[in-house]
């Protein structure tokens, strides 16, 4: 498997223009995902993970707006292509699974309709053929009695089954990239493990890249190859998962790792302080008010993401005292 990036996000900024001011939900985020690999995008609630996911597919609605950045997939910038072409990329090249499978499925349409329409809106096939492929998909995801399932409505399914349907729907056209936004947060722990195992298996089968958005570092450790840590709309650390977990460079990543319960360690250290209001982001490093290692350079301009090891980058002035 090559390490060539299949999805490349550069300097993405998405702002929400509310009457209380401009909320900088994503503020210059950059990361890449290699083909067939999994990138974990982690961070606290409200740090901009979900908005990043929506921005990649240009699903941001007013008052939100993607202000700048590039999203490269297959040699074209998704943020620049015309809507017609974008529609063909969505679902076919890049697919999305949301957090809550209940609200993600249309309550008044059957599972079959929702699955089949995904297929036949991209391919010139008959409805019957689309439905046949939909049944096959459900079967591949280990759902019992797929024929009957096709005729059911979302409310008749359990949470785990719904999320499997969502995954089936996302994978219907064998996309190159799957973005999964907290796909298991709303589910029981056992079901969570099953779905993740299923995702892993399908990834190997289809050779797709996954961007797994989560706040669960355990899931990141088990599932992903690389990890990108997001804070206040920016990526503060990016690297191979083992590298980042063993040698966290950014103070925020370190604090985050300390806050996770682990066997054989007594104390839990929550990340002190509150995440910053995205409404009035400071010009300096956003983590400064909570940072235990801050120095004079940190009051200067916002640090850039810089390489600190093979494939490992972080954005912190303290790591590069000579630069600040």
């Amino acid at each position, binding site marked *: 498997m090559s390490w060539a990036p299949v999805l490349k996000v550069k300097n993405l900024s998405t702002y929400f223009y509310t009457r209380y001011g401009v909320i900088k939900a994503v503020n210059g985020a950059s990361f890449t995902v290699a083909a067939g690999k999994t990138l974990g995008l982690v961070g606290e609630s409200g740090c901009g993970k979900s908005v990043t996911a929506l921005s990649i597919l240009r699903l941001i609605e007013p008052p939100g707006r993607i202000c700048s950045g590039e999203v490269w997939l297959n040699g074209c910038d998704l943020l620049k292509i015309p809507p017609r072409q974008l529609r063909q990329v*969505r679902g076919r090249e890049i697919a999305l699974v949301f957090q809550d499978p209940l*609200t993600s499925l249309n309550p*008044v*349409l059957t599972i079959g309709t929702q699955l089949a*329409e*995904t297929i036949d*809106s991209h391919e010139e096939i008959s409805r019957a053929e689309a439905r046949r492929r939909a049944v096959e998909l459900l079967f591949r995801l280990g759902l019992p009695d797929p024929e009957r399932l096709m005729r059911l409505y979302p409310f*008749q399914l359990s949470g785990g089954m719904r999320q499997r349907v969502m995954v089936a729907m996302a994978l219907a056209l064998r996309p190159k990239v799957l973005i999964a936004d907290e796909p298991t947060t709303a589910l029981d722990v056992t079901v969570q493990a099953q779905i993740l195992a299923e995702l892993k298996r399908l990834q190997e089968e289809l050779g797709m890249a996954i961007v797994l958005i989560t706040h669960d570092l355990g899931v990141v450790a088990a599932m992903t190859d690389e990890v990108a840590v997001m804070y206040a709309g920016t990526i503060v650390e990016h690297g191979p998962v083992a590298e980042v977990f063993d040698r966290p460079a950014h103070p925020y990543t370190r604090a985050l790792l300390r806050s996770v319960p682990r066997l054989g360690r007594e104390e839990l250290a929550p990340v002190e302080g509150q995440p910053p209001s995205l409404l009035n982001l400071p010009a300096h490093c956003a983590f400064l008010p909570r940072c235990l290692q801050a120095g004079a350079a940190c009051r200067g301009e916002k640090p850039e993401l810089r390489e600190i090891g093979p494939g490992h980058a972080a954005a912190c002035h303290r790591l590069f005292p000579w630069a600040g």
Partner: protein
Amino acid sequence: MWRYVTKRLLYLVPVLFGVSIITFGLINLAPGDPAELILCSGGVEPTKEAVETLRAELGLNDPLYVQYGRWLGKAVHLDLGKSFRTGRPVAEEIFSRFPATLELACAAMAFMVCLALPAGILSALYRHAFLDHLSRFGALFGASLPGFWLGLMLIYFFAVKLGVLPVMGRGGLRHLVLPAVTLGFGLAAVYARILRAGMLEVLGQDYIRVARAKGLKEKWVIGRHALKNALLPAVTLLGMSCGHLLGGAVIVETIFAWPGVGKFAVDAIFNRDYPVIQGYAFFMAAVFVLVNLLVDISYVFLDPRIRLEGGNSR
């Protein structure tokens, strides 16, 4: 599902019973003696004996519950008494005029849908654009506009000034235009707002985002995913709106001399023709109850969550 329909039907029995009590009780609100009234309608002062004879004949000397029982027994057989004025059976008079009212109400409903559906949907899709402002402005005014005034203004412009449309009576399609617009406009305003709100709510849902993320064509996202969900709340209100249409029809029929039950009822009120008033109230309640029943049942068909959970939930 069938259990739901049966339950709904059984529930009608006490309601219609109550309706009959109220309708019967109405006559007792009237000032004066009904027998005297009947005889007075001839124009001459009746004698005491004549009044007494008629009272006995009409059974007005019996206790109220006996009178009610007798009235109900007849009403069940669609015998609503005879009009004081014309002497013809009330039921017959109402039935002969109801088609005109129905025609008017249906035309108004059609006009309402033609106006409210595009206005509400486009308004939500192009939120804060010119079209949205126009439609919301129209809806705001439409909801505050007295129907009778709108009717008079329409008559003034289209009939008096421009002379393009007839204003009086029932006839072809041209006769229907102004009354239907008058009756439907207020409702259209209400529904445009409801649809806009419903659409906006639905458009913010995850499943719409999912539908777009799947790469569906925008017309499918709107037409299949959004519209059906946005229409559901509007459907529940349709029954209620039929009540508004029937009530509004009274005024519209009066303005446009439309020969329906509403105008008939207003005439009856001024002639103090109590059996007709009574029959009208009873008949309208029956129609309203029936319409609401149909709306509720159709809602069940539209929303799978209710349809499947009522009967064979799994």
